[in-house]
């Protein structure tokens, strides 16, 4: 018990720092958020036009209502699982400031994790509740009945947390890689585009050819976005949910292992010049 207490006492200041950073740069945060929401609205208008032009009520099994929920919950999931806290790790290796992290009695990735948690708490309070409420009000207005199911919502939260962990460790690994590819703008663009495609954020995996969809479902990217969104929408059966939780946990463990491996070998080869 005291160990857990000490653990949280060690990392709490990082969370506070993350929150303060978020508040200090709130204009950046709000502009960024508005920009991202606009992208979701473009998708909404495109899909509305698709359903207007189509003879049938559904598009490959999705109704307009499903599509709206899909677009906005995907946006929310992507926003909540976005992780760039560990992005600086490559830079810190280059300029040697990583040494300062190594002499502290705490794990380097936990520092990043708790710092990001701080900024995440702020964005949860600002966007999570309004977004879910907005989607549910829309659903109520369209169907005339409450479609919100607390059970699926809670399972979604669990899946979202697992997705965040995958995203976090994946991006720590990417932070190490960024150290080799100096062009951060180009590589980050490639990474983010590929991840959003492979995770079904642009095109639902259900719309892809079945062979490709099956492969993408197993890759870690589907666990980042598609899985939690499908659970929220109640599209998965109990056995599918259990299976996808298992898969998500599997990918958290794998990403964690890879991070530790890279960290160890980086530390062994690290030599920081002077001071």
């Amino acid at each position, binding site marked *: 018990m005291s160990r857990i207490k000490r653990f949280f006492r060690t990392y709490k200041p990082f969370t506070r720092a993350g929150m303060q950073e978020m508040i200090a740069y709130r*204009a*950046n945060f709000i*502009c*960024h958020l*508005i*920009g*991202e929401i*606009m*992208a979701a*609205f*473009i998708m909404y*208008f*495109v899909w*509305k*036009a*698709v359903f*207007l*032009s*189509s003879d049938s009520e559904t*598009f*490959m099994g999705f109704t307009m209502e499903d599509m709206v929920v899909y677009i906005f919950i995907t946006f929310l999931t992507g926003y909540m699982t976005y992780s760039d806290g560990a992005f600086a790790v490559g830079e810190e290796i280059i300029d040697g400031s990583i040494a300062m992290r190594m002499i502290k009695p705490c794990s380097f990735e936990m520092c990043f994790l708790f710092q990001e948690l701080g900024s995440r708490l702020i964005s949860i309070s600002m966007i999570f509740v309004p977004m879910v409420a907005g989607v549910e009000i829309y659903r109520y207005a369209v169907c005339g009945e409450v479609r919100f199911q607390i059970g699926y919502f809670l399972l979604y939260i669990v899946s979202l947390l697992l997705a965040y962990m995958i995203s976090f460790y994946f991006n720590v690994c990417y932070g190490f890689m960024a150290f080799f*590819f*100096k*062009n951060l*703008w*180009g*590589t*980050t*663009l*490639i990474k983010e*585009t*590929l991840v959003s*495609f492979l995770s079904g954020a*642009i*095109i639902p995996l259900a*719309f*892809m050819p079945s062979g490709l969809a099956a492969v993408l479902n197993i890759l870690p990217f589907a666990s980042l976005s598609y899985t939690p969104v499908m659970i929220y929408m109640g599209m998965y059966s109990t056995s599918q949910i259990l299976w996808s939780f298992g898969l998500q946990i599997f990918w958290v463990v794998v990403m964690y292992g890879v991070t530790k491996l890279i960290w160890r070998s980086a530390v062994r080869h690290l030599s920081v010049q002077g001071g």
Partner: protein
Amino acid sequence: MKRYLRLHRIFVVQYLKKLMEYKVDFLLGAIGLLITQAIQILFLGIIFSQIPSLIGYTFPQILFIYGFSLIPKSLDHLLTDNLWMVGYRIVRKGEFDKYLTRPINTLFHVVSENFCVDAFGEMLSCILLLGYSIPQLDMPFHWYTIPLALVAVVFATLIYTSLKIMTAAIAFWTKASGHIIHMLYMVNDFSKYPVTIYNKAVQTIITYVIPFAFTAYYPASYFLTGKNPLFCIGGTVIAGTVMFALAVFVWNRGLRAYESVGS
């Protein structure tokens, strides 16, 4: 004017030398932009595999509008990318002092200092899209189509650049405005599709307030149908001129407000 053209050439040559040093960087940036566009096209392809037309537009027509939207976007990206740096770094770090001490126009100097070859990724996808869609379309063609297209492209690019100048210039007052330029760039995504898919409010905003619709949909729809040349092409020219005048005004006011960091 001649002097400025010569200076621009010197700046570009300098930049290309720097670029040769970092070939991989350029390649990665261009590949990233190419992949981004390819995925968007795949998205449209999947939609059109299920429906014959999107509110009256066929697949080649949508691709033409999409491709057209990339022309001004990539030209602006190629030529004026340094404005992003004004928003993110140059003003905040006090590096803007450099431009004030030179005997040339500050705006010209900032813009011509960088030559962003990453934009070739967008240009390539633009050429592929237009090359694929134009032969499948039955577009009206007259002797004046090509000159009008050139005029439309020039003024559409001017709309882009002017909006970027204005948002970058905000940094003169606030020290940093990169996030505002970013927001503007998210708005420009609205111009990739026919404006008729949006509701009235959005249509009004992207036509009269932030005239991104004139960078793609309006001129492109004129070339597709030959209708409304006055509004589609004339509107682009007017929007480009007005925006540029506004941009120069805002930039000059910003210069007066600029304070160095003092170290």
